[in-house]
């Protein structure tokens, strides 16, 4: 039975371009207090464009209604559980939005004098120090703009370090359970990718690793807990093995939400990792960004971090240090996604030491609770204990011709965003569920009821699931047609 949702009216809405008509406008500029300048005279007639063909012409209320109506076609954490595995869709506290908009922070220009930027620099320093403690690393850079950008930075750091020892090596090892960004990153950072298979528990196979390991290997990119939500119990051995061959270990910190306050990557041998501030530290995903990818390193990699770095000058004030001759250089203009950093620091301040650890424990509890309730109905992919997420396979349902993607779509009718579908790739028909710590038990129960109910529907009426969703304003979308002849902008018919 569907308990969480029922259908309601939504508004139809054309595109902005379709509702435009000449002369409508939604702005008012102040009266110009300086002499007007003729564009053709100032810029040269050939440099001045005609009107922007097709650009919107709508009133203010139309703009507001347009975007408000569109917003009602979306699902967000504010509406309920968002169980995307390895994406850590947790509640986004609104105080973080408020503080990021304080004028002195929001309007700070990166080139304003350092003497007038001390507050912004202190925030960056405070967040770096907090993450150093949480990750157990020796230094953190906040310059990378996102998780994949952090990975890229991390692999470049490894290259620079190995180069300083005389040989950058050629190969990066990537487990078959890794996020797609890992191998893609290794390639753009100039490495060849060698895939290594996981063992029957879904962990790095020490034997396979040892076989793949030679003096061409620069690094292993590992995710821990891995994308099965399983803590790799051999991780310290894996790191030691890599180090014994002169190679480095990169950790994808997408799953740090399972570890904060319980276990620190720096303590178990990781050389460099990124943490997604938009996952573990609750900054909003915003429909796909902005994010921030903090990168933590052990001390041997610190000299290579992107410049500039913060340091205190003789007078005790913060200053940006550009004199970093061994730095890999810049990975982004300015100092990182500062507005995201403000939100992440607000999250850490709100939780404090005990709060962060409690959040992790609650995340673990919620994932294990879901696993327990669903295990009788869905096939758990690997028997190893779950950390903050659990991964099922659709193998039982597939026997009836219903796959993970279909179950996901039916879940929408029950009022939930789907779990992560068909990932990790090593699980056939994967259903990857991460509830996070911020979900109340009532919401978890509704979610499990929904999946159990769907499992029963598959037994009695698989067609109902195969054609889902039924209650959304948009029924199943034809992605194949979109890719066949891509139309990626509106044109006047």
């Amino acid at each position, binding site marked *: 039975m569907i308990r969480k949702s029922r259908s309601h009216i939504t508004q139809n809405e054309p595109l902005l371009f379709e509702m435009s008509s000449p002369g409508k406008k939604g702005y008012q500029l102040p009266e110009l207090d300086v002499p007007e300048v003729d564009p053709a005279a100032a810029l040269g007639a050939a440099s001045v464009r005609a009107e922007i063909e097709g650009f919107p012409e709508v009133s203010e209320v139309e703009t507001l209604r347009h975007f408000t109506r569109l917003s009602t076609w979306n699902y967000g954490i504010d509406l309920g559980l968002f169980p995307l595995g390895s994406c850590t869709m947790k509640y986004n506290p609104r105080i973080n939005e408020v503080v990021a908009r304080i004028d002195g922070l929001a309007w700070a220009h990166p080139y304003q004098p350092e003497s007038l930027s001390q507050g912004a620099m202190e925030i960056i320093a405070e967040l770096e120090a907090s993450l150093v403690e949480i990750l157990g690393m020796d230094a953190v850079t906040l310059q990378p703009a996102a998780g994949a950008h952090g990975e890229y930075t991390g692999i470049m750091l490894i290259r620079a370090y190995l180069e300083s020892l005389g040989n950058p090596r050629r190969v990066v090892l990537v487990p078959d359970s890794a996020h797609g960004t890992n191998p893609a990153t290794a*390639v753009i950072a100039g490495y060849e990718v060698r895939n290594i298979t996981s063992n029957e528990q879904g962990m790095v196979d020490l034997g396979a690793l040892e076989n793949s390991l030679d003096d061409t290997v620069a690094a292993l990119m590992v995710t821990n807990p891995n994308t099965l939500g399983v803590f790799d119990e051999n991780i310290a051995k894996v790191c030691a093995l890599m180090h014994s061959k002169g190679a480095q270990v990169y950790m994808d910190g997408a799953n740090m939400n399972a570890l904060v306050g319980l276990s620190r990557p720096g303590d178990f041998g990781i050389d460099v990792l990124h943490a997604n501030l938009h996952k573990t530290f609750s900054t909003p995903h915003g429909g796909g960004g902005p994010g921030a990818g903090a990168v933590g390193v052990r001390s041997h990699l610190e000299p290579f971090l992107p410049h500039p770095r913060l340091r205190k000058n003789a007078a005790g004030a913060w200053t940006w240090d550009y004199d970093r001759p061994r730095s890999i250089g810049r990975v982004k203009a300015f100092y990182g996604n500062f507005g995201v950093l403000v939100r992440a620091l607000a999250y850490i301040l709100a939780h404090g030491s005990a709060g962060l650890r409690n959040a992790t424990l609650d995340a673990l509890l919620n994932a294990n609770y879901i696993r327990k309730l669903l295990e009788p109905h869905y096939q758990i992919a690997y028997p190893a204990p779950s950390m903050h997420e659990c991964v099922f396979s659709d193998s039982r349902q597939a026997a009836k011709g219903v796959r993970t993607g279909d179950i996901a779509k039916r879940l929408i009718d029950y009022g939930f965003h789907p779990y992560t579908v068909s990932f990790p790739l090593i699980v056939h028909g994967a259903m990857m569920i991460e509830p996070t710590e911020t979900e109340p038990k009532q919401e978890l129960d509704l979610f499990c009821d929904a999946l159990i109910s769907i499992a029963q529907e598959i037994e009695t009426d698989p067609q109902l699931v195969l054609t889902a969703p039924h209650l959304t304003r948009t029924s199943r979308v034809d992605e194949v047609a979109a890719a066949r002849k891509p139309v990626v902008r509106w044109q006047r018919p």
Partner: protein
Amino acid sequence: MLDVCGLRSLEDLYAHLPAETKLDRPLALPRGKSEYEILDYFKCRAAENASDYASFLGAGIYAHYRPVLCDVVASRGEFLTSYTPYQAEIAQGTLTTIFEFQTMVCQLTGMEVANASMYCGSTAVPEAALMAMRITGRERVLVARSVHPEYREVLDTSARNGRWHAATFGYDETSGRIDVAGLESMLNAGTACVIVQSPNFFGVVEQIKEAAELAHKHGALLVMVFTEAVSLGLLEPPREADIVAGELQSFAITPSYGGPFAGILATREKFIRQIPGRLVGLTKDAAGNRAFCLTLSTREQHIRREKATSNICTNQALIALMATVFMSVYGKAGLRELAGQNLAKAHYLAGGSEQKFDAPFFNEFTVECRGRSPEAVNAALLEKKVIGGLPLGRFYPELSNCMLLCATEMSRRADMDLVREALQA
């Protein structure tokens, strides 16, 4: 819940972790703070930054007025707390706004395809270079010295690590535009693309058509970069370029000490399969209604892994949404009027000062300081609560007597008069 899990305590949840991986002490962080204390902490930090200063800094980040609707829309939880729209049936809001964003970026730039946004302008530049290398099969990139110096640094970092080459060519000392002869002497059959910014870092409007013809003559692509999107309200779009890489911070995004912003990447239809990042495409749902979804994802890392066009995963959807609302509020007439005000203010600000370059500028320009250094001019202005221009010696040693000044529609005449006086003193 513990009972259901068959556990006695929360600690049992991670009892299986090997001892050497467990943290055996509390994190050395303070106790948790209340909402009020957090607000107070950040207000105190904000007070340590500049407040109540007039500023004439631009150099890639511009202070433009933000219509209130931008925050009203971006604060709606359905946008703010949603995810990358993989599940199209419950993400039509985000998908539709991205489709509108892509369309408006095309209309602004004269291109045929735009992606759903990049991290920022600076990271869009190496992505454009990589794209040009995939298209041409060549591995050398030529970048103008008048491209934002920090963007060039990001490009250099990528080139060094990706084992390809990025070389710079100079600018004309009189006009401030690219040195065409210098560029021509460096172009050859190995050049994948030429990267030019307009208005360039000195504020000067480049002649994109000329640069494009030169690049094309040698089989290379032209990548046009912009940092000041408002300029496209007035300036001829770079139709002759093959790839446009730019920064949309000017469209409703606060300077925020350097980020988060949103970059754009736009190109011609024929290169659509080489563009990195998310793309939203038009389709239908099962009932035949118009719908949108992410498309051509076989270019992307989550499908192609090591064979992907890029490792980019995130776009800047929420920032792009704010920019979309901004473009909707100003619209066709407003963006032009806004650009016109920027042009007028900057030309008023420039009045009477010694221009380093003689080519046209939009809302930023390079001034040669006579008699005293740019730093001394700025120090005098700071006493009047005015943040002056950016001294250029930091990036261009040969321009150590120059500063880059910017005016926008937010610049007040009285403050501009203070700058004009200081430059003439």
